[in-house]
């Protein structure tokens, strides 16, 4: 059935314990209100499971309905080049309603990024391609909306909003 393609690899941003056997992958869109709702839920899961969990976020921007989602994704990748992917990931979700490029620059400076470098990286073809590659991998993995979660490579079909995601992760761990 719907299987993650490709599996977690060196192109991914990894949070948590790289050696953990439990893997959670989220395909998300920074301008999607459902992803915004999932953000604190995932954050809590990361805290609860601690070193037992490896978490990866892949970009799945729905650019026609969310005109700022693609550049917001590029911005997190640009922050990643300065070793600050997850800080940018968080602050972008927390400021979801203000994701115009000017605001992305503001957020980047709030977390202390080198702004000249950040600004030039926002135009980097390689970063734009990386976001597209994430999107393509989501397409091929059967992502049918955002957020979509995969646990150890298998699509999670339950309702992530009601505690079922943590339950399922615990069940896989047990």
């Amino acid at each position, binding site marked *: 059935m*719907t299987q993650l393609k490709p599996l977690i690899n060196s192109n991914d941003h990894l949070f948590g314990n790289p050696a953990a056997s439990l893997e959670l992958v989220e395909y998300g*869109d920074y301008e*999607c*209100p*459902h992803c915004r709702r999932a953000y604190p839920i995932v954050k809590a899961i990361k805290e609860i499971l601690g070193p037992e969990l490896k978490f990866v976020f892949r970009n799945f921007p*729905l*650019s*026609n*309905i*969310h005109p700022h989602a693609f550049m917001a994704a590029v911005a997190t990748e640009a922050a990643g080049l300065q070793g600050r992917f997850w800080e940018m990931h968080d602050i972008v979700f927390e400021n979801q309603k203000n994701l115009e490029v000017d605001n992305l620059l503001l957020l980047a400076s709030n977390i202390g990024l080198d702004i000249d470098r950040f600004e030039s990286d926002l135009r980097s073809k390689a970063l734009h391609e990386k976001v597209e590659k994430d*999107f*393509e991998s989501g*397409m*091929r*993995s*059967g*992502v*049918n*909306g*955002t957020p979509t979660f995969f646990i150890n490579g298998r699509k999670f079909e339950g309702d992530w909003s009601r505690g079922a995601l943590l339950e399922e992760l615990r069940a896989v761990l047990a």
Partner: protein
Amino acid sequence: MLPIGTIAPNFTLHSTPDQRLTLEELRNKKVILAFYPADWSPVCGNQMALYNEMLKYFSRHNAQLIGISVDSKWSHLAFSDQNKFGFPLLSDFEPKGEVARLYEAYDDHTGECRRALYVIDEKGIVRWSYLSPVGINPGADGILDALEELDTVKSTNQ
């Protein structure tokens, strides 16, 4: 669902209030027919919005996406405008569901299309199909796999 290898039944339906689209006009292209229950489902990235993001990937395979539901052409116009769709939505409105019935994609109980997908090749032959449970958006992986396989078969035969 129609069996693989069937000649895709021809039809003409409204694509906008003043334009119609005939399937046969799309010979020499692959066609993805996506029957779906209704415009205006209340989620981000509903099936049609999702596919709308993937048009460039479909066109790499010389494939045209077409959405079909029993909604009126006016509903389609508004739905399409709001979501900035770059592909036609056809209105299977009068006689209601006639084309969906031809493709065995009509649900008599709900009076809506089922969530049925077909890939039709350049010669108008059904080459792939999938019927999804109505509440489940089937994503696009199956369509892309099917398009890729058709292109692979073609290049090995040439």
